[in-house]
C-alpha cells in the first residue's frame, strides 16, 4: 500500500493524542478516586450516584433528628424521674398521715407538700432550649403556673399548654414523639403527665387536696381520697417513665439502623462511582509505557525519513 508522508505524521499524532487522553482520564480517576465525575462519563451511573447521595443525605438528617430527639428524651426522662420522686414522697406523707399524727406533724407535712407542689411545677416547666417540654405544642410559654394564698399555701396550679405532641421523622415515613403533654383531659391522644381524665390522674389537684387536708387535720379524707388518688398519679408517672425509656431505646435502635443504612449507601456509592486504585494505577502505567513506545517509534520513523532525504545526490 502506498504511504504518503503526511500519513506518518497524522497517524503518529492521532495515536499520541489517544494515549494522552487515556492517561489523562486514568490520572483523573486515580487522583479523585472516582470513575464518574461528569454526567457524560456514565449517565446511568451518575443518576444512580445522585440518588444514592440524596438517600445518604436524608439518612444523615434522620441521624441528626434522632440526636435532637435523644437529647429531648433525656431531658424529659430526667424531669419525669424527679417528678416520680416527688409523687413517691407525697404518697409516703399521705400514708403516714393518720389519726396518730400530731397536729404539728400534720402542719409540717402540709408545708412539705406545699414545697413538693412548687418543685413539681418547676419540674413541669422544664425547658429544652427555649421550648417548654411539657406544654404540648404550645411550647413557647411555661405551661404551669402556681397560685398561692397569703399564707403561701398553693391554691391552684393552672395549665396553659395543650394536649398535642409533635412527631418527628427518624426514618422514611417513620415518626415518633418523645414529649408528653403536661395535661390531657380530652379523652384521646397522648397521655398527660400530670393530669389525664382517662386514668384518674390529676397530680397537682391531688397534692393541693393533700395539702389542704393536712392543714385541716382531715386524716380520714387523706386516707380515703388523697392516698388512692396519689396512687393513680404515681401509676401514671411510672407509665410516663416507662414510655420515655422505651422511646430512648427506640431512638438508640433508630440511630443504629441509620448508621448501618449509611454504611450500606456509602458502599453502594463507592461501587458505582469509586475507582479501583490498584487497577487504575496499573492501567495508568500501561498507558504511560505505550505512550513512551509510541514516541520512540515515531522518532525512528522520522529518522528513516531523514535517511531518504540524505540519499539525494
Amino acid at each position, binding site marked *: 500500500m502506498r504511504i504518503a508522508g*503526511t500519513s506518518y505524521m497524522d497517524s503518529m499524532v492521532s495515536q499520541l493524542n489517544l494515549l494522552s487522553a487515556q492517561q489523562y482520564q486514568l490520572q483523573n480517576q486515580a487522583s479523585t478516586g472516582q470513575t464518574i465525575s461528569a*454526567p457524560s462519563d456514565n449517565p446511568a451511573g451518575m443518576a444512580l450516584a445522585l440518588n444514592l447521595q440524596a438517600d445518604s443525605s*436524608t439518612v444523615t438528617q434522620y441521624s441528626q433528628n434522632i440526636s435532637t430527639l435523644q437529647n429531648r428524651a433525656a431531658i424529659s426522662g430526667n424531669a419525669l424521674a424527679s417528678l416520680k420522686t416527688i409523687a413517691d414522697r407525697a404518697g409516703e406523707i399521705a400514708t403516714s398521715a393518720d389519726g396518730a399524727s400530731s397536729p404539728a406533724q400534720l402542719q409540717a407535712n402540709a408545708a412539705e407538700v406545699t414545697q413538693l407542689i412548687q418543685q413539681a411545677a418547676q419540674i413541669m416547666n422544664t425547658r429544652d432550649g427555649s421550648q417548654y417540654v411539657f406544654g404540648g405544642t404550645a411550647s413557647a410559654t411555661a405551661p404551669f403556673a402556681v397560685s398561692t394564698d397569703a399564707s403561701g399555701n398553693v391554691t391552684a396550679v393552672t395549665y396553659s399548654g395543650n394536649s398535642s405532641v409533635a412527631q418527628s421523622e427518624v426514618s422514611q415515613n417513620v415518626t415518633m414523639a418523645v414529649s408528653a403533654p403536661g395535661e390531657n383531659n380530652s379523652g384521646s391522644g397522648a397521655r398527660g403527665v400530670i393530669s389525664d381524665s382517662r386514668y384518674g390522674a390529676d397530680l397537682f389537684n391531688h397534692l393541693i387536696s393533700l395539702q389542704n387536708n393536712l392543714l385541716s387535720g382531715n386524716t380520714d379524707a387523706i386516707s380515703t381520697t388523697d392516698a388512692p388518688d396519689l396512687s393513680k398519679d404515681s401509676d401514671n408517672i411510672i407509665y410516663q417513665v416507662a414510655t420515655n425509656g422505651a422511646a430512648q431505646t427506640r431512638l438508640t435502635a433508630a440511630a443504629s439502623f441509620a448508621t448501618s443504612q449509611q454504611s450500606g449507601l456509602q458502599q453502594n456509592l463507592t461501587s458505582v462511582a469509586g475507582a479501583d486504585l490498584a487497577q487504575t494505577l496499573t492501567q495508568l502505567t500501561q498507558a504511560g509505557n505505550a505512550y513512551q513506545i509510541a514516541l520512540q517509534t515515531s522518532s525512528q520513523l522520522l529518522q528513516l525519513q531523514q535517511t531518504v532525504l540524505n540519499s*539525494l545526490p
Partner: protein
Amino acid sequence: MLGLFNTLNLGARAMTAQQVGVEVTGQNLANANNPAYARQRVQLQTSTPTPTGIGMEGTGVEAASIQQVRDQLLDSQIQSESSVGGYWNSQQSALQNAQTQLNEFLNLNSTSGTSGSSADTQGLSDQLNNLFNAFQSVATSPTDPSARASLVNAAQSLASGLNQSSQNLTTLNGLFNTSVSNDIASANQLLSDIASLNGEIAKATASGGNANDLVDSREQDLENLSKLVNIQTAGNSDGTVSVSIGGQQLVTGNKLADTLATYDPGNGNLLVQTASSVTPLTLSGGSIQGTIDARDETLATLRSGLDTMASSLITQVNGIYKNGYDLNGNHGADFFTGSDAATIGVNPAAANDPSQIQAAGTANASGDNSIALQLAQLGQQSIAALNNQTFSTAYAHDVQNFGNALSNANDQVTNYNSVNAMLQNQRDSVSGVSLEEETANLITYQKAYECSAKLITTVDEMLQTVVNMKS
C-alpha cells in the same frame, strides 16, 4: 534518418520533458505537508514520429499534460463524512459547554460528601437535598431560630442555583444562535469562493490548460463547507461543480444562485432558509444542524426539565405552606415566589424574619410542626407533574438524559474520527505525496536529464567533426 540537427532537437525536447518532471516533482515536494494538495504527475508521451527512408522514426518525448491524482469517490466519501463529523463535533462542543454550565459534578471526596464541583459550589441535586433536610430540622425543632435560619439559607441557595442554571443555559442558547449565524456567514463565504473557483477552473480548462491547484482549493472549500452543512454536488463537463443544499441550488457554474440565511420562527431560536427564495431548509448534517439540534433538543429538554421541577416545587411547597402558621400566629403567605427556574425565589418576608416561617398547623402552638413535617416528607413523595418521581429522582433522571446525549455525541465523534482517519489514509495513499516516491522520481528525472544533455554533447561533437572535415 533524423539528421544531427533533429537529433539535437530530440535531445533538447527530452531535457525539457525531464525538466517538467523535475518541476512537477518539486511542486509535489513543496506541498508534501499541504493536506488539501493532490499529487501531480507529468504525463510523458512520445512526440510525433517522422517518416524516413527506413520507415517512421521517433522524435523523442514530450510532456503531454500534468495530471492530478485524485479519487472522486474518496473525495465524495470524505465530504459526506465531514458533514457527519461536523454535526457530531458541534453537538459534542455544545453539550460539553452545557454540562459545564449545569455544574452537576460528582465529588465523593467533598466535606459534605455530596454532589457539586466542590463542597463550596454545590450542584442542584445537593441543594435540593439540603432544602428538604432543612425542612426536617425545622420539623424537629420548630421554634429553633438557627433551624429556621438554615431553612432560609437552604431555600435561597436552591432558588439561586436554579436561577443561575437557568440564566447560564439561556445565555448558552443565545450563544448557539450566534454560532449558527456565524456558521451561516462562513458557509456563504465558502459558497462564494466555490462559485469564483468554478469560474476560474472553467476558463483554464476551456483554454486547454489544467487547473489542478484550483481544483485542490475548490475541494478544500467543499470539504470545509460540508463540515458546516451537508451538501450535494454535481460535476459539470466544463469542470465546474454545482452545489445544492436540501434540494435548493446554491452554486451553478460560476454563479452564486442563492445563499443561506437565518430566520426566527417566532421563538427566538434561529433556523436556516435560503436568502433569496426564502425557503426553509431542513439540514441533515454539518455543524449548523448539530448546533441547532443541541439547542432545540437536548438543551431545550434540560431547560424544560429545570423549569418543570422549579414550578412543581413552587406549587407543591406553597400548597402545603399556605396552611401553616408562623410564630406570630400569621397565616396564608407563600414560601416560594416566582413560577419557573429563572424566577423562583424565597418570600422576602420569611427570608428577612425566619419567625415568619409558617411551620405550625395550628395557631398559637409554636411547637406544632405538622406543616414543616409535611414539607419535609414532600421530598420523598412522588410528584405527578414529574412523572410520579420524587424531586431528586426526577432531577437525576434529567441529568442522566443529558449525560446520555453528550455520551452519545462523544461516541459518535470517536467513531467519526476512526472512519475519517481511515478515509484520509486511503486518500493519502492515492493523492498524498510520498517522499520516497518523489525522491526516486527526482533522481530518475535528473538522470534522464543528464543523459539527454549527454546526447546533445555527443551530437555537438559529431557536428564539430563534420565541420572540421572542410579545412
